[in-house]
């Protein structure tokens, strides 16, 4: 089933991205603000990495949430609708998140 | 009134073991649309599933390695080489095993149909163990002169039962799971239906049908030490007997030589088939004395008697000296793990002994009921020695007595019997229905009658516990109507049984509720035990000879002059069994009676 595969593949991708993310973002200097993020995100490769990370984490999170919800017998019959809701949330969050990454531009 | 309230089916089969499921499957396959099976257990819980060792048929897949003797290793027969086995040989072994009390026409059918039935099982998905070239594997079994026990490790009955149940489902058979049949309606020698309790609700229903078949299994529960399941209370024989049908050869009860000490749980004969030894307290293989040729693989009645003799003469093991060692250690870990894995687990779970390391304490255990409801070769129940049919009433499997086992059954022949005669009954029933069988009316209100009977049992404030009565019955049956019998013991047993029947009138059912009342069922089952035990003892008392499993110390010889005949018992006016006798079918030119020596 696709959901299952998507979840495994994104999990493997996350293993890489999340490790990077945790190390670069949450460790020294610990305190972050616009400026020190900007330093990194001026490099387009970093922008790409962050957007890919966003992509996979959304897939993983939404398939995960979908699985958790459809595990309940009551929700099981509404799988179709739930899947569409997940897709919509995913697309919106992806666009919004990408805009965010994009927004780290040196102040004009 | 009641006739229209009743549930109706074309065919009602009581019991969902191998015999019942085969009949149901075949009838459905033959185009009978409305086949219902009632079972007090879920079908897959039937006792057929407990069978371990194998199912006989002369397939000729393996042979003993030349020059290694009767206990040596086996090998597959290379393509195109001489067979070592034949239905004829199987037939002879069975007749000899039966101590010439088996009906030879029925045995001939059994051994010939055997081959076809095994292949049919295989084609239906049964997972048999295999030879290296992919044929069904075979092993030796007691009393069989060739390796013809086809097996699936040591869970043969389990895979057969699951296979046939699946097929019955596939053919659309309707199962009433956990319905307890308590009465069969026979009027004017025509069967009309059954009365059953839906265990879940406690409701009593009348179920009418054009044909009724009993496949309710054996009656080993009348004994204290038994390999049989709790469910093997011989309901079928007792119900049929109460309804006026006769019972045949009830005195023949097989004791298996290797029941786990105290539990009675079976250590399959495959243990000996694979080469296990029986040892007494002094470490002797005592079978040398009793059956120098076949040793441990002599037939069951003989081995059990030999064990009992060792025990009685003070050469038993364990604190109370009531056991014998079953020694498998020399087979080695690998063989035990591959061929006898379940047996090993049983020994570990129930006796705390690992057969790879230690010998297992065992004792004879009541195992198989040769007697039962007499039928012709198509499962049609007969009412008397002349073979008058009870129209529409069929029986097969352990509850029936065709008789292929006569005075003693050979291991692996009973799964075969249940399959072969279950299948034949299926065809016969389909025939019967297609030839325009009618639904016959029922007089009165049998459901109400049974409801009232149950209510009386529930309302009885009696002071006796059902279990105490049952235990006393089992104790006396084991002590006085067990492996060795004599006039004095049997008279004592008869007196005890009758007293217990009286006492049962004051038995108290503790659970008064309707829903899933297994306490009530236990009481009904005990009533059944009391009913047919009287028949067993009466038959045994009258049969003043020793034959097969019926061993009388006061009449130690077989007596063909007077006793080469089946016992028929029918419930008399006074409620006591009335005995008559029926001839044994013997092909005098082919298999005349001989002395039975191993």
């Amino acid at each position, binding site marked *: 089933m696709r959901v299952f595969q998507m979840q495994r593949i994104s999990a493997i991708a996350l293993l890489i991205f999340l490790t990077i993310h*945790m190390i670069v973002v949450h460790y020294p200097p*610990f305190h972050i*603000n616009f400026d020190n993020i900007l330093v990194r995100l001026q490099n387009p490769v970093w922008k790409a990495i962050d957007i890919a990370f966003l992509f996979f984490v959304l897939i993983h999170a939404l398939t995960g949430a979908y699985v958790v919800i459809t595990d309940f017998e009551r929700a099981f019959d509404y799988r179709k609708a739930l899947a569409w809701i997940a897709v919509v949330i995913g697309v919106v*969050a992806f666009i919004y*998140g990408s805009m965010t990454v994009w*927004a780290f531009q040196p102040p004009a | 009134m009641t006739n229209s309230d009743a549930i109706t089916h074309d065919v009602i089969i009581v019991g969902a073991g191998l015999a019942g499921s085969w009949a149901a499957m075949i009838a459905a396959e033959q185009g009978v649309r409305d086949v219902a099976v009632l079972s007090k257990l879920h079908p897959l819980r039937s006792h057929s599933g407990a069978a371990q060792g194998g199912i006989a048929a002369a397939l000729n897949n393996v042979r003993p390695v030349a020059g290694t003797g009767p206990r040596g290793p086996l090998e597959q027969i290379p393509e195109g080489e001489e067979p070592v086995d034949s239905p004829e040989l199987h037939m002879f072994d069975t007749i000899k095993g039966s101590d010439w009390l088996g009906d030879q026409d029925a045995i001939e059918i059994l051994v010939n149909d055997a081959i076809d039935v095994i292949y049919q099982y295989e084609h239906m998905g049964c997972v048999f163990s295999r030879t290296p070239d992919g044929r069904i594997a075979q092993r030796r079994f007691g009393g069989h002169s060739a390796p013809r026990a086809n097996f699936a490790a040591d869970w043969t009955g389990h895979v057969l039962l699951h296979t046939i149940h699946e097929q019955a489902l596939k053919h659309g058979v309707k199962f009433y799971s956990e319905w307890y049949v308590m009465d069969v309606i026979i009027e004017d020698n025509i069967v009309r239906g059954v009365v059953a309790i839906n265990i879940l609700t406690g409701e009593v229903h009348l179920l009418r049908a054009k044909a009724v078949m009993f496949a309710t299994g054996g009656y080993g529960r009348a004994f204290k030490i038994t390999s049989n399941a709790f469910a093997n209370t011989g309901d079928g024989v007792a119900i049929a007997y109460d309804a006026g049908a006769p019972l045949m050869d009830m005195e023949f009860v097989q004791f298996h030589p290797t029941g786990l000490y105290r539990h009675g749980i079976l250590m399959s004969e495959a243990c000996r088939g694979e080469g296990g030894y029986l040892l007494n307290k002094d470490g002797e293989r005592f079978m040398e004395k009793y059956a120098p040729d076949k040793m441990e693989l002599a037939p069951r009645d003989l081995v059990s008697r030999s064990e009992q003799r060792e025990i009685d003469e003070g050469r038993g093991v364990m604190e109370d000296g009531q056991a014998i060692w079953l020694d498998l250690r020399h087979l080695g870990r690998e063989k035990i793990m591959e061929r006898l894995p379940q047996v090993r687990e049983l020994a570990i779970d129930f006796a705390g002994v690992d057969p790879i390391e230690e010998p297992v304490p065992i004792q004879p255990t009541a195992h198989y009921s040769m007697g039962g409801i007499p039928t012709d070769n198509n499962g049609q129940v007969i009412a008397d020695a002349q073979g008058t049919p009870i129209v529409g009433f069929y029986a097969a499997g352990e509850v029936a007595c065709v008789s292929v086992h006569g005075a003693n059954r050979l291991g692996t022949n009973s799964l075969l019997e249940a399959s072969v005669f279950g299948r034949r009954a299926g065809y016969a029933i389909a025939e019967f229905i297609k030839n325009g069988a009618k639904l016959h009316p029922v007089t009165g209100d049998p459901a109400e009658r049974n409801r009232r009977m149950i209510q009386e049992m529930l309302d009885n404030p009696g002071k006796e516990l059902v279990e105490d009565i049952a235990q006393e019955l089992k104790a006396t049956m084991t002590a006085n109507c067990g492996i060795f019998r004599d006039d004095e013991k049997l008279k004592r047993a008869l007196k005890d049984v009758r007293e217990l029947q009286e006492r049962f009138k004051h038995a108290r059912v503790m659970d008064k509720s309707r829903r899933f009342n297994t306490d009530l069922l236990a009481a009904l089952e005990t009533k059944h035990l009391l009913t047919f035990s009287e028949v067993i003892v009466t038959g045994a008392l009258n049969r003043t000879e020793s034959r097969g499993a019926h061993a009388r110390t006061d009449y130690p010889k077989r007596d063909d002059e007077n006793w080469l005949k089946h016992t028929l018992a029918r419930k008399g006016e006074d409620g006591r069994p009335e005995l008559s006798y029926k001839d044994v079918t013997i092909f005098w030119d082919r298999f005349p009676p001989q002395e039975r020596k191993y």
Partner: protein
Amino acid sequence: MYKTTGFISFFLRRLTGVALVIYLFLHILVIGSVNAGPEAFNARLNAVQTPIFKLAEIALLAAVVYHALDGIRLLIVHYFDVTEYRKSMFYAVIVVATILVIAGGVPIFLFMLETAS
């Protein structure tokens, strides 16, 4: 309820998974404030970098680490025949997760103490 190591691992995996999803969306919203300009962003970020939030971050770390390791365990089970080692694998996950969380948590904790004082 049927409690075994299997059940506990499943429960924790699910708990951490759901917690992480909730966190993820909050996270996206917080970081998203940059769309309103660097000032808004810095203000929002300052608000979520108080000591309390740093403590929460350790919890987050624990959740991620456990969830990821357990995820790896499952991936291993999918592709290799190792169900026999199911219990020891679970204990290994717990041990490794604990070590990682301590290793990762201490610097954050020290930093928290620093900012708090």
